[in-house]
Every structure is written in structure tokens, then in C-alpha cells.
């Protein structure tokens, strides 16, 4: 089975600064998708950004961008101009490109934004 590792249980960042959350994964597949989900205290899972493995270009979504290194199986999330509302648990997730395949989640990184 695929595994997703988030080695930073907790991170903090000053408001307006930039922070990078790390994620690595293990797979033997060549075609897959990677995601970052945000989980605020309400515990709803909110999609932040997604990356198709066949695309070399890193995905960006406003203040959120990823650094996708396929050979290294690394998928980090960069949050620029951090805002208080960014404080949440962030989960990295992997899924195969096969239709209907499940998500594999990492253990999460708790992000604190310091005013």
C-alpha cells in the first residue's frame, strides 16, 4: 500500500510570513495525484490544492503553491503571506490515477499562525 509521511507534527509562522509544510510519499505507480487538505477546528476537510503527477509544472492556487519533486517523491506546500485563517491541520494525501481509488492520508501538520 502507498504511504504518506508528514514529518512535521506542528509548525508555526508569523502572520504575513511564508511557511513550507513537508510531505513525502512512497509508491510504485507512475500516474497518481497528490493533494493538500486543510482541516480547521470544525474538522471539515477543505481542498487546498492538487497536483497531477504527469505535470511537471507545480500547482498554484493564490497564496498556496507546491513544490513537487517526482523523483524524490516529495510534495511540499508553501503558504505565502500567512493569514490567521490559515491556522489549521494540514493533511497531505495521495491517490492512484485508477478510477475510484481511495485516498491515503498523512498524519497531518498542525499550523499555528502567530499575530
Amino acid at each position, binding site marked *: 500500500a502507498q504511504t504518506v509521511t508528514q514529518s512535521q507534527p506542528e509548525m508555526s509562522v508569523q502572520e504575513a510570513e511564508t511557511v513550507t509544510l513537508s510531505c513525502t510519499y512512497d509508491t510504485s505507480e507512475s500516474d497518481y495525484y497528490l493533494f493538500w487538505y486543510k482541516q480547521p477546528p470544525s474538522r*471539515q*476537510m477543505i481542498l487546498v490544492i*492538487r497536483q*497531477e503527477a504527469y505535470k511537471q509544472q507545480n500547482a498554484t492556487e493564490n497564496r498556496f503553491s507546491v513544490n513537487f519533486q517526482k523523483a524524490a517523491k516529495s510534495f511540499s506546500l508553501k503558504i505565502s503571506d500567512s493569514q490567521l485563517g490559515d491556522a489549521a491541520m494540514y493533511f497531505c494525501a495521495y491517490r*492512484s*490515477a485508477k*478510477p*475510484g481509488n481511495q485516498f491515503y492520508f498523512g*498524519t497531518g501538520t498542525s499550523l499555528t499562525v502567530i499575530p
Partner: protein
Amino acid sequence: EPEVTQTPSHQVTQMGQEVILRCVPISNHLYFYWYRQILGQKVEFLVSFYNNEISEKSEIFDDQFSVERPDGSNFTLKIRSTKLEDSAMYFCASGGLAGTDTQYFGPGTRLTVL
């Protein structure tokens, strides 16, 4: 924007009782999923459902659990004879046909087993 909905938002039950968690997936999606998140832990896959049958399930999804799509809109997770360790947040998700589609999560149902 269409979204996945789940009811109830919080369910409290006594150990040994049966519970049914309900989900309304996004209407044109074809794949449906249940995930579980025990407090403080990561989200874990339970089961996926396609074309009116289970397409994949994890080792967590034992005989205590069942899923059903009783009509064209609802997708349910039944837990028979609940145990204390079933206390968790249960997320429903849905996705489209192609593997390119993201899974969209509902807001979750918090299940508390006393």
C-alpha cells in the same frame, strides 16, 4: 457550488446500538467513499462504492459495517452493535468517473459511543 452533505452532524449512541450515518453526494458523481478519523489521528479509508456495489474496502470495514445507496441521492453507512472505539468523525466523499477527479468531502458526522 455543489457540495456533499452529511446528517446528522453529531450522533451520540449507547454501546451495542446500531447507527446509520447519511450522506448526499454531489449529484453527478459516480464514486462514493466513507472515511473515518479518530480524534487526533489521520483520516483512514473505510470503503468505496461504485455502480451499486463495494469496489474496495479496508481491513477496518468488517462485518460490523455496511453501506447502501437506497435511492438515487443518499449514501448510507450503517454500523451495527457500536463499540467504544467506533467513536470518531466519519466523512463521506464523492468523486466523478475519471481518475482525474478530486474527492469532495462532506462536513463529517461526529459519532460518540458511550
